[in-house]
């Protein structure tokens, strides 16, 4: 999996705007606008009614909307796409079904305005009428690149992302992982975020401790909690 990837799980429905840095993998259902500064993969079960803008777009699911990529668009076998394609590099594989207008000019310009908006925008929620018991929290606060936001609701109390505050620009505490009853607008994607299941442990944990001096929130690496401090010391000694 990509180093920093957000996943819209299969039981998830999002109606709204998705914007983010990094890569996105969509397995569920999205209606709205998707603007990502990385790669977007729409998996086989994805159902998308949205205009998509990204660096690279790979489609294996069904999309009705305009696809615009700065680098490339690939329509793989089994996909069904209706809408314009705009990218300098394009491949439509045998078994893909496509209908629409193709323009091989560069697309996918995620504007500066969009990313600036992203920075200051607090986490907003999307509605998900059909989320089968899973939180549709594509929540994010920080659009900040390094913020490994973990909106996993199964985690215990502190919902704060184990961010590296030194580098995070607009780190905000995560709201409750419950669905926010707000009207759908923009959802900023976390740099790293798994919407469904327990996140994996990352090596960022020790780094955070040294950077911030704050106690790293337990939920992320509970097993390492004690060891973390030890690791920090070692790092400090440069041994």
């Amino acid at each position: 999996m990509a180093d920093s990837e957000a996943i819209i799980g299969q039981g998830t429905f999002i109606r709204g705007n998705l914007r983010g840095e990094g890569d996105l993998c969509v397995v569920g259902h999205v209606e709205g606008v998707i603007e990502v500064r990385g790669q977007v993969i729409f998996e086989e079960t994805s159902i998308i009614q949205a205009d998509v803008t990204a660096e690279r777009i790979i489609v294996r699911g069904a999309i009705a909307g305009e696809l615009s990529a700065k680098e490339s668009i690939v329509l793989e076998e089994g996909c069904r796409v209706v809408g314009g394609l705009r990218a300098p590099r394009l491949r439509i594989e045998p078994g893909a079904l496509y209908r629409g207008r193709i323009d091989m000019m560069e697309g996918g310009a995620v504007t500066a305005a969009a990313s600036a908006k992203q920075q200051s925008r607090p986490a907003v929620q999307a509605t998900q009428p059909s989320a089968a018991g899973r939180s549709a929290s594509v929540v994010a606060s920080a659009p900040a690149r390094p913020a490994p936001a973990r909106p996993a609701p199964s985690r215990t109390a502190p919902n704060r992302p184990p961010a590296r505050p030194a580098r995070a620009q607009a780190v905000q505490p995560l709201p409750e992982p419950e669905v926010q009853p707000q009207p759908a607008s923009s959802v900023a994607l976390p740099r790293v975020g798994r919407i469904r299941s327990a996140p994996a442990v990352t090596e960022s944990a020790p780094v955070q401790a040294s950077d911030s001096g704050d106690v790293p929130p337990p939920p992320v690496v509970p097993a390492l909690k004690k060891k973390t401090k030890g690791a920090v010391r070692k790092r400090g000694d440069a041994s």
Partner: protein
Amino acid sequence: MRKDELEAASTLGSGISIQGRIMGEGNLTVEGSVEGDVTIQGDFVVAAGARVHGSVEAHGVVVEGDLEGDILATGPVHAGAGASLRGNVKGQAFTMEEGATVSVTVDADFDLPPELQGGRE
């Protein structure tokens, strides 16, 4: 029907230049240049280096060279890596390799899943 008409394959070599219409049965590969409409029952291939300017009606269509004109295919339409394709394409399905340069509007018959059938384009 003559035996050789059953598997008829015609080739318009690279040294050939045609100004006018081409019609008929069987498959046709163009390696040269055609200025005019092509209407055949078999498959149509625009080979690398070939240039066709005119509308094409055929079963399957493969473009490896230059084709400017509308395509009406009952079979698949494919643009290879070196292709340059411009026009309206109607066929069973449209596929293209990376490296092809296309400026097309594609029409193919298939349905989106019901959740997305808000209005077929």
